């Protein structure tokens, strides 16, 4: 009966506090201050949809944790700030969350550039941060620090997984990617891995449109003129959508195989315009894992936000749940205790298997997925059929490689 009593008292206090116009939460939780989680993410700009999925994923996890009584009797509270894809705002807001709002833990931002900035602040203030979208290899490489954890497949892992998963029959490969750091790295790691797993294959043509390019015509004709067996694309978001729409009219998808990095947001945006038979590589698609926790998650997400969750929502939810398990295991909000708990964690998440962090770089052993686009009657947009799950330990850099990068 105690819990009933507490609930009622909380309810009454909350009502009173709301009536007084004060923050209901602070009033109700005066005895038990909430555990504060800080999230700086890019709610404005080209990556805004990803950030929204992330915020929703973390919110859903926190709602479930709080409904189950919180951690150590304390509720979780989420504080969200908009970094607008600007690293300097990422720094300012993250510092503000730590020094003014006194957040206990950080959960990852959106863009890699902001991720780099947030990681630097976490390092300075020795705050545990769990990254759920940024994946530049520099985060686990030269910029690594012991309070950093990531459950995103790194750029290296993804590029290698693509080379690993491709059929050996593709010998002549063309590349197209936005002219920025991540895709330059991608083609390098992809090429290196290809030399190992399919030594006869060659990258015969590379195209670098600028980010936000409206007209892909010259790139499409260049790509086709080299008559590749396969085009590997590192385009994403509005660039990928524009490219696919324009390439269709050139019959590109009939003339050659197309393999691309793919986000659920892009599948959603293209709808039925997405051609079938494209090889898509995804981070953490909800349809990549059948049954179990994932189904429950998809239903809960849909009930709360009336939408199908994106990769970002999946990783954000897992990131928050994993952090919560770490806090529970440490039975404290002390940074060193939680860091140690996370280092030894065995987390059973949405994607099946057990997530652990390795010692050298705190990279979670998360999978990535490779499949072929096609129709699923249950979804209003194209999905991946015939999905291959590529495990982290097959493609992640060895500890020696990581240590060499830090020199």
């Amino acid at each position, binding site marked *: 009966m105690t819990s009933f009593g507490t609930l009622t008292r909380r309810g009454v206090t909350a009502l009173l506090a709301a009536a007084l116009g004060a923050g209901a939460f602070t009033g109700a939780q005066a005895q038990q201050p909430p555990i504060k989680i800080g999230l700086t993410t890019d709610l404005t700009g080209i990556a805004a949809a990803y950030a929204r999925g992330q915020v929703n994923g973390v919110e859903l996890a926190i709602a479930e944790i709080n409904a189950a009584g919180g951690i150590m009797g304390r509720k979780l509270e989420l504080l969200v700030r908009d970094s607008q894809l600007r690293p300097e705002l990422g720094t300012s807001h993250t510092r503000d969350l730590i*020094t003014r709002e006194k957040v206990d833990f950080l959960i990852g931002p959106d863009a890699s550039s902001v991720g780099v900035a947030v990681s630097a*602040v976490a390092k300075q203030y020795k705050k545990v941060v769990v990254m759920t979208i940024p994946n530049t290899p520099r985060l686990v490489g030269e910029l690594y620090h012991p309070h950093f954890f990531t459950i995103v497949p790194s750029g290296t892992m993804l590029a290698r997984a693509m080379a690993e998963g491709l059929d050996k029959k593709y010998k002549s490969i063309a590349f197209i990617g936005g002219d920025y750091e991540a895709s330059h790295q991608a083609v390098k790691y992809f090429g290196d891995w290809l030399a190992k797993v399919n030594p006869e294959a060659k990258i015969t043509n590379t195209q670098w449109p600028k980010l936000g390019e409206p007209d892909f015509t010259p790139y499409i004709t260049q790509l086709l003129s080299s008559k590749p067996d396969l085009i590997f694309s590192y385009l994403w978001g509005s660039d990928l959508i524009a490219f696919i729409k324009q390439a269709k009219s050139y019959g590109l998808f009939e003339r050659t195989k197309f393999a691309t990095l793919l986000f659920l947001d892009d599948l959603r945006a293209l709808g039925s315009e997405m051609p079938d038979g494209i090889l898509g590589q995804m981070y953490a698609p909800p349809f990549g894992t059948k049954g179990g926790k994932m189904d429950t998650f998809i239903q809960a997400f849909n009930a709360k936000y009336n939408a199908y969750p994106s990769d970002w929502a999946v990783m954000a939810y897992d990131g928050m749940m994993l952090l919560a398990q770490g806090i529970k295991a440490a039975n404290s909000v002390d940074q060193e205790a939680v860091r140690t708990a996370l280092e030894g964690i065995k987390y059973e998440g949405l994607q099946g298997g057990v997530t652990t962090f390795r010692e050298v770089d705190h990279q979670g052993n998360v999978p990535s997925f490779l499949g072929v686009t096609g129709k699923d009657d249950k979804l209003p947009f194209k999905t991946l059929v015939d999905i291959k799950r590529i495990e982290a330990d097959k493609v992640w850099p060895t500890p020696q490689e990581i240590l060499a990068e830090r020199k």
Partner: protein
Amino acid sequence: MGWRREAAPLLVLLATMAALPFLVGESDVYLANDFLITALFAMSFNLLLGQAGMLSFGHAAFYGLGAYTVALLYSKLGVPIVPGILAAPLVAGVMALAIGFFVVRLEGMYFAMLSLSFAQLIFSVVSSWYSFTGGDNGLPVSPPDWLLPTNAYYYFTLAVVSVCIGLLFLVRRSTFGAALAAIRENPQRAAYLGLNVRVYQLAAFVLAGALAGVAGSLRSPLQQMAFPSLLYWTQSADPVLMTLAGGVGAFIGPIVGAALFVLLTFVVTSHTDYPLFAFGAVVLVLVLFLPKGIVGTVEGWWDRRRAKPAPATPPQAAHAAAQQEGSRP
């Protein structure tokens, strides 16, 4: 305008900023630090626009060069940040000399466009030279332990920025400053009087570039990172907006504009879902109702109040008359 009237608000501001860490929390000190750096950036820009009448759209190049000088020296050669901050104005100044050599030959819109082109050129190099600059995800830099606490770095910034703004103040009141003002008002007449217009403009461009470099060199240790976005053209638009918002003709105009923008950016991105809407509304109000900027409007109002009892030529009117005359050669 008497020098006391221009110096007084600066000294009040300096005293306030010096007392600030005793009055507010760490996060606000950090925000104030951001403001000081932004203010110096805007002030260095206004040496060009306000004093010499040169509208540059590429000022961020020197800001970013300053930031990268510190970060590159730190991460490539292990040079601590204080010598880096001393080197930054030299690097930015030398680059400003090279770029200025070409751009001061042009006027008005052509000057603006060429300065923008050069800045974008430097931006492209910085953002795509991965092995040297770290590319678009930035280059890390760490202040030494004694500068790591927020207050310590704040006072360090305050000292450097005060010296630089003091220098700008002296320049404004020097014969060099007067010559720049003469060129701004009427370049033909200034040339006829024997001023070498191009040399003066080049000198202003170099000085403004070097001081923007100082601002940038303070920025990267604050963020512990140098980013290519510091050199991007949108960054060049910031001091233009800040200066116009604060008041282009007033010495402290850009400082007020910088305070407004830093606060607005922070508050708006912390608490609203529509930051661009909020920015747009503020700019609209400023343009429609305060065309002379905040400081310009306040000064005008102050002068009118004082002029009422004795309507003998108020300084503002004399200034306006000079401008009127200046615009017709």
